[in-house]
């Protein structure tokens, strides 16, 4: 069937089962938007900034496991989208981002709103395309969706010149992918898996190091089974929070810079590390030469370049975690003796008894950790929890009781302030039955505050909880610890009135200065089902602890700060 390039884009969305597109129109993508105008098969959500459109698509993808889609225009539309794309790239989130481009004849002439979009996105996408003809579009669209979610997921960018969106061509959407150069290894080497299983059974002090890859591979069920069968303790990275339920007896908590004492000690003292889908980020490992010094390492990852990139691995296994664990689990069951790790579990329990994850609550001032714990008590599994980036993000990772994968949505790799709110909007669209909370800071929320309008207009009631300490909190914390309290440009005493700001955009705002007020505000926001901003005034100089200073060793944590 003959159709225009723009019609092909829309047809591909239908064929891929896309129910939501986030975006922002503009000159070069107008032909596509002219088709969006006629749509009934999917919903377009108009964000107020292209960065937010991509973050919303990202939040949608993280919450649902489906591919997120965003449309943006050329030039500034695209450059605004880059932070969103890079955020998704760092956390391996499947996205298809379609940008308009100036007509082919004008490419390279510095035309109005022209930018070398594929040149820019090359380093922060899994793959990208500049479309030269409408004839190529069906294949490219099909490939883009396939590449985005297969293998190690990631964002794929398609840049379509305006004349290509107007060009007529035959639309034959491919039924299968013909990419001879792209064959991700999913099965995992059986001999290696067997060796790894034997190593698990041989170990005396093993630990599971659970990474975000588990969530992407939908492998959390198998991981739980493996943990339960072996009775081996497990630590989670930021991106893996929710893999094991918060009350799982073998979960030691989060690992890394702000990980729990027992989790970091387990990593430091283990004789075998069973790394399932992590990437040995520097925020987890601390000083590399001291990281897991006594441990043999099993590393399972779909991306071969993640294995051995930073640490030497004794049992490298390239493959899809689900497929690998399906083979590994029966082999481990055959040989494992869960009682064998009893002494090791005791040691770790003692570590937790000595230094549990804790904070000092107060009656005078609201502690940020209390807000998170309280929200967890009130909402627990009913909420999908997003965050921005900063202290509030780490406290959320530490103190919210996560119960299942995809419950926690946060920017790990790139650490993008301004991510939380638009991601929450996308998540709410993806999982409308859940209450979607965005824990944010007074610094972070201002980076995409305009999305209040989007959320209200789109009737996507997200509850923003601002842990307002009138500081750029995490930077202030580092200034406290390492810069002798020289608070260079981190004092945010001058602030907008968040309550009135929310109201100005059609939402509801609450100012909270006591614990009772918080309970009331949260309940009211849930009951009303509105877009809400709960501005919680919290202890100004609370720090995130424990902390492994940058480049420090995991076993040398700062457990408290004394002025």
């Amino acid at each position, binding site marked *: 069937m003959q159709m225009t390039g723009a019609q092909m884009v829309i047809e591909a969305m239908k064929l891929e089962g896309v129910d939501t597109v986030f975006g922002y129109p503009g000159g070069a993508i107008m032909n596509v938007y002219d088709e969006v105008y006629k749509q009934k098969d999917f919903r377009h959500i108009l964000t107020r900034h292209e960065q937010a459109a991509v973050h919303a698509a990202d939040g949608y993808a993280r919450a649902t496991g489906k591919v997120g889609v965003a449309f943006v225009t050329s030039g500034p539309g695209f450059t605004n989208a880059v932070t969103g794309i890079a955020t998704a790239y760092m956390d391996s989130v499947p996205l298809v981002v379609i940008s308009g481009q100036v007509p082919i004849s004008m490419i390279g002439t510095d035309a109005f709103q022209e930018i070398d979009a*594929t*040149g820019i996105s*090359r*380093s922060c996408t*899994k*793959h990208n*395309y*500049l479309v*030269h003809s409408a004839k190529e579009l069906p294949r490219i669209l099909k490939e883009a969706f396939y*590449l985005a979610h297969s293998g190690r997921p990631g964002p794929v960018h398609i840049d379509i010149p305006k004349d290509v969106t107007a060009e007529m061509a035959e639309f034959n959407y491919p039924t299968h992918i013909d*990419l*001879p*150069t*792209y064959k991700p290894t999913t099965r995992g080497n059986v001999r290696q898996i067997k060796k790894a299983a034997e190593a698990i059974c041989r170990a005396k002090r093993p630990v599971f190091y659970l990474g975000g890859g588990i969530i992407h591979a939908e492998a959390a069920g198998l991981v739980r089974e493996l943990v339960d069968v072996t009775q081996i303790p497990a630590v989670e990275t930021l991106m893996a929070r929710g893999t094991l339920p918060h009350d799982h007896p073998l979960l030691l908590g989060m690992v890394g810079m702000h990980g729990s004492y027992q989790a970091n000690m387990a990593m430091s003292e283990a004789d075998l590390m069973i790394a399932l889908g992590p990437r040995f980020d520097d925020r987890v490992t601390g000083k590399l030469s001291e990281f897991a010094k006594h441990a043999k390492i099993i590393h399972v990852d779909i*991306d*071969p*370049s993640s294995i*051995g*990139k930073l640490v030497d691995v004794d049992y490298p296994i390239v493959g899809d975690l689900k497929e690998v664990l399906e083979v590994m689990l029966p082999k481990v069951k055959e040989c494992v003796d869960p009682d064998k790790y009893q002494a090791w579990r005791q040691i770790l329990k003692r570590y937790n008894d000595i230094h549990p994850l804790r904070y000092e609550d107060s009656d005078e001032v609201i502690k940020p950790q209390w807000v998170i714990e309280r929200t967890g008590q009130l909402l627990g599994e009913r909420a999908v929890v997003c965050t921005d980036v900063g202290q509030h993000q780490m406290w959320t990772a530490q103190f919210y009781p996560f119960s299942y994968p995809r419950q926690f949505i946060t920017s790990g790799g790139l650490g993008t302030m301004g991510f939380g709110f638009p991601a929450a909007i996308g998540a709410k669209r993806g999982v409308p039955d859940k209450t979607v909370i965005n824990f944010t800071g007074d610094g972070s929320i201002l980076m995409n505050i305009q999305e209040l309008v989007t959320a209200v207009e789109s009737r996507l009631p997200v509850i923003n909880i601002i842990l307002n300490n009138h500081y750029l909190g995490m930077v202030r914390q580092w200034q406290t610890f390492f810069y002798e309290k020289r608070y260079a440009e981190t004092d945010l005493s001058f602030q907008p009135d968040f309550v009135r700001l929310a109201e100005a955009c059609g939402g509801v705002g609450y100012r909270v200065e006591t614990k009772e007020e918080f309970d009331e505000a949260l309940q009211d926001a849930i009951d009303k089902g509105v877009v809400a901003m709960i501005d919680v005034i919290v202890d100004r100089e609370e720090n995130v602890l424990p902390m492994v200073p940058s480049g420090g060793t995991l076993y040398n944590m700062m457990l408290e700060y004394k002025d």
Partner: protein
Amino acid sequence: MKVERRVISVIVQNEHSVLARITGLFAARGYNIETLTVAPIPDSDMSRLTIETRGNVRVIEQIIKQLHKLIPTYKVIEHEEMIEKEMVMMKFPINESLAAIQALCQAYNGGIANVSSQHIITMVADEPRRVKHFIEAAQRFHPVEIVRGGVVAMERE
């Protein structure tokens, strides 16, 4: 870790900006390309790149893995047993000894490519190490211009 020299051949699908993808990978990760040669493979929609690079074992391993990871990459050849050749052209003033220059070039598997009223141009194609020696030896004839072509390599078996 010891820094070593490696020659890596990459077979890629001919598509928009594939060369930029490869060089961008090196640039973004701070890896070094010493020489690079590219040409289409006859009767196919593939191109072959030959990259001469340097790095320690971990860096070389990452380079190879990252090259594999690029979507248009069909094959990465990293055998140590490769036959390598590099071409160099040199321009000498006409008043230098033509016979001596020719003899030198012949010793390095080359010869005179052109002689004009002003200059003698030579061409040598040999192993990279021998090309280096040739350039050193040719200095006595006061070359005015040197163009090296980069390494091409083929597996021995």
